[in-house]
């Protein structure tokens, strides 16, 4: 056995790269499992799509009924994410800045849309907003708007499932905000609104955009909560995931796969966007501290 201070011993100690066991095992297992469950099955979508010529693919993904579904899916998702950004920011602000009765319960229940199965959310929202429901009857008699079984219902379901994303991305950034910044702004003569707009809001912006993007990405792919309340009328209230299901039920695997390819490409773009927004958030908050 070498003496403790021998160069060999020291060398091994310093380059700590081999000190911990299990690298090959854990990485090998991770890559194998990832490939089997996610990567290989996902590649089936692209391989199956390759069986189509580009013209065939384009014809499938641009039929009027499918295009109408994109318009509804993306339009409603964008609107829902915007609504979530506004109310999510207000809710996060209340939870961090104000004391009010029942705050702890509100804070815990914000995550309900994560925890509540989408099918349950779908039938609950439908019961509530249908023409004879508690909220739906009021909206219909007072404003003359039918919510359930129209595109409004789609929007509503997407607002429900996206809400926690904005609250939970903005809340920690708001909690970490430096007191002294606001005190400094105030002592330099800024009024409260100026401080919020010029000092706090720019700091929150990356997190707010991340929450918006997460809510949007979730909304685009959502299926369970939407189909109960949408009414699913062709050209009017059919979402894109439903188009995939419809094609599958007709055993039109090629059609289903072509539309799935479009959705997958959108997912990849959103994933990249969200990753860069999160990097921006981290960088911004690092700078402020």
């Amino acid at each position, binding site marked *: 056995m070498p003496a403790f201070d021998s160069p060999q011993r020291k060398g091994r100690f310093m380059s700590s790269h081999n*000190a*911990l*066991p299990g690298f090959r095992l*854990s990485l090998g*297992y*991770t890559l194998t499992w*990832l490939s089997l*469950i*996610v*990567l*290989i*099955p*996902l590649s*089936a*979508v692209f391989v199956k799509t390759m069986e189509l010529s580009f013209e065939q693919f384009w014809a499938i993904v641009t039929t009027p009924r499918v295009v109408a579904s994109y318009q509804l899916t993306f339009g409603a998702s964008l609107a829902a994410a915007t609504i979530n950004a506004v*109310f999510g920011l*207000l809710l996060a602000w*209340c939870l961090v*800045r*104000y004391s009010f009765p029942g705050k*702890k319960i*509100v*804070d*815990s229940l914000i*995550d*309900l*849309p*994560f*925890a*509540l*199965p989408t*099918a*349950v959310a779908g039938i*609950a929202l439908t*019961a*509530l907003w249908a023409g004879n429901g508690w*909220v739906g009857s009021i909206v219909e008699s007072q404003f003359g708007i039918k919510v359930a079984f129209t595109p409004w219902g789609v929007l509503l379901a997407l*607002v429900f499932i996206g809400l*926690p994303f904005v609250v*939970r991305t903005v809340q920690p950034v708001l*909690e970490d905000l430096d*007191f002294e910044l606001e*005190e400094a*702004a*105030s002592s330099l003569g800024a009024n*409260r609104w100026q401080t919020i707009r010029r000092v706090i809001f720019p700091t929150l912006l990356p997190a707010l955009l991340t*929450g918006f993007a*997460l809510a949007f990405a979730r909304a685009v*792919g*959502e*299926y*369970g909560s939407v189909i*109960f309340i949408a009414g699913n009328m062709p050209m009017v209230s059919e979402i894109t995931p439903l188009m*995939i*299901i419809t094609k599958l039920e007709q055993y039109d*695997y090629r059609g289903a796969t072509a539309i799935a390819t479009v*959705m997958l490409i959108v*997912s*990849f773009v959103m*994933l990249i966007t969200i990753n860069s927004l999160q990097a921006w958030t981290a960088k911004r908050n690092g700078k402020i501290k």
Partner: protein
Amino acid sequence: MAATALHLHSDLAGRYESNPATRESAWVKWTVIGVSLTFFALFILLPLFIVFYEALRKGWEAYLVALVEPDALSSIKLTLLAAAISVPLNLVFGIAAAWAIAKFEFRGKSFLITLIDLPFSISPVVAGLIYVLVFGRTGWLGPWFIENDMRIVFAVPGIILATIFVTFPFIARELIPLMEAQGRDEEEASTVLGASGWQTFWYVTLPNIKWALLYGVILCNARAMGEFGAVSVVSGHIRGETNTMPLHIEIVYNEYKFSAAFAVASLLAILALVTLVLKTFIEWRATQTLKRSKT
């Protein structure tokens, strides 16, 4: 996904509100609270409440009858089975992935994390579709399985696969940031002192990550039991055989048996509430542990 990460709260509201430089006037405060809570009541409280209201509308007896009906019972069993298989598998995967990613340096690490995140950003319907493409009648492996008299899609194995897919990142995503933040000093010390890899993991790493691990398991389980879109595509909807609870709810609901649908839905709503209570408890415990280690 950042939005589901274990987050330690520190309530600073009192500090903000007592300082004139960091508070708004009372009417602004109560207007903002009023608007936020109205939105909260409309979108969170009312939907939750109406599930139980509709479920019990025809009385307790009808409620219990809807739950013990054979199709309902078999859907409950299948849901429990799918969760009992998919959660442990994702637990093992999550720990392995977090160990490799958080404790070692290698090229392509951030790309690997992105790949692990993929199932979060893919529509559940597409998640179901990919297994139909692989194991379906015309799929890659489908004909082989059919020849050998095994069904994967439109049967129970497909449901389990789809459940594993949609819950794939939950535990890994909970562990990776925490284990990265904890570094590798403690594990190295343990190894240098002669502990084996498993001993190091069991006695050093595991106690440090137990709350995050439990948190990930709870979220993973909630999603596993509640998944609808992906499971719907691969299920085949055979009554009493390939229906999970969410699928059973859909069928009963479409037959206009609303109370029965809400009865089964109320079980899943209770599961969601239990999940949120446990989540709040874990956050509280993790905060306590952190405070104690600081003092």
